[in-house]
């Protein structure tokens, strides 16, 4: 079974990150699970020159919207401003507790591949991977 190279969890809530990491590790769908507690850290990780991400093997970013320092929207705007080649190294899925209509409006025209409601569970991860990464990976 193939794994995707990396999954980047972007959330300011440590417990959420801990739980999501447990779910992902339990499923064993990624070579590494990275954690960023705000948008800025996430951008830095994505921009690392030695990163193993590539358009052929993009990183899955699970992005929360409400965060300090740089929230999800700001991250998406900054991400959108990156060169296309860099953008293609990541697939961004919004993972949040709830979306009000105002927030939903703000996401229009932002490079978002999909939405997921918390909590993350094995079923949701499997569906997500099937949609965005095809037969490359399968859940255990």
């Amino acid at each position, binding site marked *: 079974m193939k794994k995707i190279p990396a999954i980047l969890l972007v959330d300011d*809530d440590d*417990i*959420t990150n801990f*739980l999501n990491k*447990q*779910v992902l590790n339990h499923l064993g769908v990624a070579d590494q699970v990275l954690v960023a507690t705000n948008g800025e850290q996430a951008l830095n990780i994505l921009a690392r020159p030695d990163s193993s991400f590539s358009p052929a093997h993009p990183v899955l970013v699970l992005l929360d919207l*409400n965060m300090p320092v740089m929230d999800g929207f700001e991250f998406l705007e900054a991400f959108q401003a990156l060169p296309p080649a860099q953008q293609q190294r990541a697939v961004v899925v919004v993972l949040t*507790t*709830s979306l*009000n209509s105002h927030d939903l409006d703000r996401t229009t025209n932002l490079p978002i591949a999909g939405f997921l409601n*918390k*909590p*993350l*569970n094995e079923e949701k991860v499997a569906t997500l991977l099937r949609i965005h990464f095809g037969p490359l990976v399968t859940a255990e």
Partner: protein
Amino acid sequence: MPTPPASLPSLPAVELHALLAVSFSALALWRPLYGPDGAAVTDFACEYLNPAGQQMLGQPERPEQTFLTLFPNACENGLITCCCRVFATGEAGHFEANHPADGRDNYWHLAARRGGELLATSFTDPAGETTLRANHRAEARQAELLAAAQRRAQEREEFAQVFAHTPAAICIQCGPAHRYAYVNAAYQQFFPDRQLLGRPVAEALPETVDAGVVDLLDAVYRTGETYYGHEQPLLVARPGGQAPKPMYFTFTYQAYRENGEVVGISTFAFDVTEQVLARQERERQRQQLEDLFMQASAPIVVLDGPDHVFTLVNPAYQRFFPGRELQGKPLRDALPELADTPVPTLLRQVYTSGETCVAEEMPLQMARSAGGPLEEMYWTFSFQAHRDAHGDIDGIRAFAQDVTASVRARQQLQEANQALTESNRQLTRTNTDLDNFIYTASHDLKAPITNLEGLLHLLQRVLPLPARQQEGVQPVLDRMQQSVDRFQLTIAQLTDLTKLQRAAAEPAEPVDLARLIEDVCLDLAPQFAATEARLTVDVTGGPRLAFAPKNLRSLVYNLLSNAVKYHQPGRPPVVHLRSHRTENGAAVLEVQDNGLGLNARQQAKLFGLFRRLHDHVEGSGIGLYMVKRIVENAGGTIAVSSTPGIGSTFTITLPGTALPETTTAV
């Protein structure tokens, strides 16, 4: 004294008579009449007069009248003296006279001689020629008189013609009873149905007695002084029970005289009834206008001339300035505080241009009493130019209205509105804040509870089997899960509430009720199947509704899902959905079930927020609260009738205004 002839042949009576009868001369025998002393002859009685004498004097053969009566001028001209002397002396006498004054306008002479105790006279014209000449003169005189009479008649006729056609009414009344001797057509026209000529005024026009007319006539008749009457009223009686006609006359009563004596009254009269009535009418109208002006509740003033002198101030105007003298004063003296306001400029403009000017709600600082404190008043003015007979502006009419109260009221209203707008804005802000709060709260609460649930799941997985099987561990884990569920439910309710706030703003549109119900039934199909529910829908009597579709869907969904959810265990739910229209045009939506039913206490709480009456089934406790809110926001009502163990019927009534058309749903 001459001696009589010695003898005369005695003549028989027949011959003597013939002789006397044939004489041209008038022959008479007179017997002397003595005065009171019995000595002197003063007159003669006629014993005999021959036919020529009879003809000449117009007397019988033996006239009863004496000499002096038959010749009234005999004393004056000496004839009687001549005769007395002849009788006394016995000498023959002769007398010549021309006596037009005797009425016998001829020259004549008389011869006298005493015969015994009698006096004989012969008198005649001296010659036939004289008589003839006299006759000619008499004829000429006669013709002259006739011509004069005809002339007078002609004049009278002309006068009569003039009088008859003159518009003035003329009458002549004769004698102390003022008997009508003449009335012209105009006069007769005043009293068309009366016989006037020949009758005394009191009899012909009895109404004149009480009116004092007869008294006036009497006075004129008595004093001879002319009376001038000016527009004197007279109620003229009319026949056939008609009300008397009031008439007014201007007239003169003028006495006319004969031989210096007042013998009658001539009247010239004009019927001035129309003029008097017209003037009375004008006066009445003028009075009416004045009354209107004086009694008008609206303040009115008339300002005269370029200085705007108060010439008329009606009481309504004066009431505003009880202590101030306005009448007769120019505006700048009467109300000096207006000097620096736009009023003088406006008045000058109206006075110059003649164009009416209306000033609305002009704020003015004015004193109600002279020297009193200035008060803020609001006036609405209408200034109209007033023009004289030549069309030149000579003043201004000002209609004023004190609008202070209404302006104040409006200002207060505006202030109240502003306050209302402000509080509305605050409320809106508060609502938005609340909305945001609920959202944030639900979000911020949701995250940790989601984590808690995740941790619980993780714990279940990582807990070694022996530990999990240890007594008391699993029930604790279960209760933790229940608490998490309950927490999540509360958060879901909060989220639903925020949705409800937004739903209120949804616009109404025509909705096909039958199709909407079909859609809802599709959504509820799993629940229907699980409970083996049976639903009958009868909305053929119901109309197309004008309603926000989402809200209507929410109503139907909640009612139908409740009907299934709260079914009596062991009894498949049977639900009837009906819709019809009431007589007054309201739309009724009715959902009847055979479920658990509700007792009175439960019914009272039914529509409250977070009221869950049954614990054994899922529910947010917000459904019926939302239903009620939606119905009431649309001006409708919701009611429930229920019997525990039998079932419930929910009835929603929506007002007719929500139903623009009556097409029966397919």
